[in-house]
């Protein structure tokens, strides 16, 4: 159902620019509303013209009560859902009921799904179609593939089923807004996606159109796990952490609206109030909102002393806009209040302090005991896990005795079934034991031995040993990710991307992008890429080599594709970088993520 919802049309976003204007004239972004129009038209075509659908239901894996003689399912290609549909069909068959069935897979169907239909004996009773819906523009500069499962399936399960989809998405963007002149990337999946995209494009004809997007940067989520695991403190990220933004819209509950109903709000650049605070550190938001409220009051006050004619003009011209602004302003003030309340209740300051200490590598023992107490008190299961992962990632693993003790206490507090969660985290390299004195080659030979071992039980162990080291300390030193402590950091006038984490940490992912763009490749970053386990590449595109045709503007438009999700904080950081360096970034992501979503995807404490 949310797929349908996702396809709902929003008009063309008026070209609202950032609050601060750029250092240089920032180039205009391409118009992505076309993507949405395409997707919508396809779906309407499929539903109305082809199958005459008149009613939609949400797939809930429950028996279907309907008298319709044809059923159409719009689903993700998941085996579980297809099995459920097969059951529906077989039940109907047993009851002697004749119906026609159609499955529309989005964005594509998988052979494994068809194999299920075949196995269940309903292949032929059910026909299949595809809705190739790959790209949902969430805003002027954000496009989402809306594939949250990409993260777990690719990075945990090692299933490459979405590589083709990501390559296809890139191909579509390329055909509409390309040709790209440079493609940079880092990560195993990024490499595969690039290959897939290239092969898909290879058959195509030479491009003749004016390019709108010059450069592309592909990055795997597992290149940087630290950034998405940090608490977000920029407004949009905070709203996502607390209220969960879905498909670019958020539902504010009664505690925000201060009424008894919830309100759904689209959060994008069309919301003028939101657009000005979305990238701000939360500490500035209140000041800004109250200033805004004062301005609004002044505007309303103009009414006083107006004559009838002036009043008439005021009502017809200004009042509507003011009322709209008023509504938005009160919503965001309500949201901010709610954030304040929640963040003080949870001892948020202490939590942030611990995160910053971990990033800095300062007073780590104190951090360990803070985490332990957090677990002991059974406060937020996800936050405890998040801190554990941050500890492991920043310290290259936990000391064996810490690992054993914290794991045991975690299982005691939140349930022993989390054994599976721990095994997943280990496999991903997110939460591991330190391997004292073990060099990489020793580890590799050990892995080799395990892989040859025939017992199935050793399999998971073999995978987990493949998990790589994070090398965060060394990376942070080389790339200067942690600004010197003790220096005053004015969050109102950010001097670098660290402002998105209160000046404590420059996001690794964004720093890499900055460095590569600056150097026009990976030269000089060899040490860094080695610590990130390699898989970096830089390719010049445009086989035709018509450099002269390429507009200079397009060269400053950079498309960054996050494979496995990106956070709103990272988007804010890139917007900042863009303003500083005269770039415009377009973020394409498999899904918007945050620490909660990232870890929830790895939980295995439910059937």
């Amino acid at each position: 159902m949310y797929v349908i919802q996702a396809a709902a049309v929003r008009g063309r976003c008026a070209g609202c620019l950032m609050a601060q204007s750029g250092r240089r004239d920032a180039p205009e972004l391409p118009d992505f509303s076309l993507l949405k129009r395409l997707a919508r038209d396809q779906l309407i075509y499929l539903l109305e013209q082809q199958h005459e659908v008149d009613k939609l239901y949400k797939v809930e894996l429950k028996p279907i009560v309907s008298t319709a003689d044809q059923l159409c399912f719009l689903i993700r290609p998941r085996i579980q859902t297809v099995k459920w549909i097969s059951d529906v069909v077989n039940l109907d068959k047993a009851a002697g009921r004749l119906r026609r069935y159609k499955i529309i897979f989005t964005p594509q169907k998988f052979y494994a799904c068809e194999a299920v239909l075949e196995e269940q004996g309903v292949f032929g009773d059910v026909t299949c179609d595809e809705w190739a819906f790959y790209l949902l523009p969430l805003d002027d500069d954000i496009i989402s593939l809306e594939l949250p499962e990409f993260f777990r399936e690719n990075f945990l399960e090692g299933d490459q089923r979405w590589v083709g989809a990501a390559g296809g998405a890139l191909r579509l963007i390329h055909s509409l807004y390309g040709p790209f002149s440079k493609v940079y990337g880092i990560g195993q999946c990024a490499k595969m996606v690039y290959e897939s995209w290239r092969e898909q494009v290879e058959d195509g004809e030479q491009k003749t159109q004016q390019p709108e997007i010059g450069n592309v940067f592909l990055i795997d989520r597992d290149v940087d796990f630290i950034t998405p695991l940090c608490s977000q403190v920029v407004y949009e990220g905070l709203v996502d952490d607390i209220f969960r933004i879905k498909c670019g819209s958020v539902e504010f509950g009664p505690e925000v609206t201060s009424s008894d109903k919830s309100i759904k709000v689209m959060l994008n650049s069309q919301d003028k109030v939101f657009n000005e605070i979305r990238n701000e550190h939360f500490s500035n938001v209140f000041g800004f909102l109250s200033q805004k409220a004062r301005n609004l009051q002044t505007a309303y006050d103009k009414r006083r002393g107006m004559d009838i004619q002036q009043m008439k003009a005021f009502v017809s011209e200004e009042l509507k806009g003011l009322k709209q602004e008023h509504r938005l302003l009160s919503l965001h003030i309500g949201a901010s209040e709610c954030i304040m309340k929640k963040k003080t209740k949870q001892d948020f300051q202490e939590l942030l302090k611990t995160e910053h200490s971990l990033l800095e590598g300062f007073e780590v023992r104190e951090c360990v005991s803070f985490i332990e107490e957090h677990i002991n008190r059974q406060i937020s299961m996800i936050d405890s896990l998040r801190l554990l992962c941050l500890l492991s990632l920043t310290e290259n693993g936990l000391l064996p005795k810490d690992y054993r003790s914290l794991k045991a206490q975690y299982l005691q507090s939140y349930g022993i079934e989390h054994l599976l969660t721990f095994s997943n985290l280990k496999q991903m390299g997110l939460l591991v034991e330190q391997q004292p004195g073990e060099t990489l080659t020793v580890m590799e030979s050990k892995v080799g031995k395990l892989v040859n071992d025939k017992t199935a039980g050793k399999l998971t162990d073999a995978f987990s040993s493949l998990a790589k080291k994070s090398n965060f300390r060394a990376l942070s030193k080389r790339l200067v990710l942690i600004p010197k402590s003790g220096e005053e950091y004015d969050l109102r006038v950010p001097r670098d991307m660290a402002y998105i984490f209160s000046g404590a940490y420059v996001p690794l992912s964004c720093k890499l992008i900055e460095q590569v763009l600056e150097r026009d490749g990976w030269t000089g970053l060899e040490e860094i890429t080695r610590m990130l386990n390699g898989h970096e590449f830089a390719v010049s595109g445009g086989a035709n080599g018509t450099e002269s045709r390429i507009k200079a503007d397009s060269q400053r438009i950079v498309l960054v594709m996050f494979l496995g999700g990106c956070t709103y904080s990272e988007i804010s950081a890139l917007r900042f970088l863009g303003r500083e360096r005269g770039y415009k970034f377009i973020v394409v992501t498999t899904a918007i993520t945050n620490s909660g979503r990232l870890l929830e995807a790895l939980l295995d404490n439910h059937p």
Partner: protein
Amino acid sequence: MSRAKPEDDEYWNSSKFSAFTFDDEDDEFTKMKESKRAVNSILVDDDDDDDDVEKVSWSGEPIGSISWSVKETASSFRSSGEQSFPKIDTAPSLPKQGSGYSLSSLFKAFTDTSTRAYAPELRKPKSECKDYMSDWSPEETVRRMRKGRAYSLERFRSLQDKLLLLDEAVSLHDGNVITAVLIYLKRSLSKEILFRELMVREVALRHYVHYLKEMGEQKLLLMQYKEHLNIKDEGRRRDFLKSCLSLPFSQDDAMHVQDHYTLLERQIIIEANDKRGEAEIFRKYPRKASILNMPLITTLYYSCFYHYGEPEGTFSSPANIRKTFRISEKQYILTALGARAKLKSWFDVDSLFNTKNWLGYTKKRSPIGFHRVVDILQKNNAPAQVLQEYVNLIDDPELRLSLAQKYKCHDIVIDTYKDLKDRQQLIVYQGKVERGSHEDRKIEELINNMQIRWKN
């Protein structure tokens, strides 16, 4: 296709269409070979013709697939010569409305070079042409699969061919195709052989394991244990967990699984007794939920709430749970504190921290910071007196001051400033207390005391 009568054969063989004999049951083997060659010659420039072919479906109309309409709109918007997403054909055996496949359209497609089609589609109208498509190399096959075109895996019968096919799929980095090949291998190879080969192919192995997991067939160690989550009945769940004890877990995990079993066993006993809720405490504070399947710490909290002070011998007593599950002192104190504070049993709270030294004096000691104790007490609305006692126990003067100010423990603030010899702060604080009150007088007395060596 039913076997053709001899006279039909005669007609076909003598007719001008003889070069296009598609009946694979034709006795004249040579003719079949001939046509096979003809088909194969078309296939040679397969890829070059992609563009031409994709624009037309079998019925000669533009393909009405969704991916097609993307392309259509896209190219009308901007004249890019890009290829569109390939469409995965629906099953050939389906009587699909609107797809009027006929032999004539087949011929038409074959003769009309501008709309030349692929051999695989020959399979669509009838199955005669199977042989022709089975000549595809592993590489061609997986590429066709990726593009969603018709394919056939039946010709990959030798182990070597199967593995070639698999390796080719892996090299394409398309998980969809890799899994499709694995499903075929699963059906056509014994488990042992398949597993042996997968062991040296990590990418394929991971796809296979994931596929089995999704199909609910995977039975790796932890997945086996995970099964318990599907068992609703607590007795059966307990028995299942017991059966898991013999699985070859690592030493640590084995201990956790053992704990899980013991915990559920205890919970079942406790639940059976407490369900009736006869004791007074259950009437006063009715249970909100059953204790079954709750985490250990929740169980300990429950026990500290409802079964505090029971002798260690009883399963439901906090002491017994603490001992059985090796709960740390810190964890125990935190949990007991929470439960007793909730019940406002300040006496119990007190005795949690009391320790006697060898002279018999009691002293308060805590494995958790007293600021944390204050925090928990305050959240449970402890009276000012109780709160004050614990604020006073906070070691760090700064922390003590800030909490004392927060909870208005004036005496502690005053004493702490006195200890810090901070006269200035004391004067500032005097402004915050009620004039003429006990605190006001106390401060007045102190700042006039000439015997204290103030630092300011």
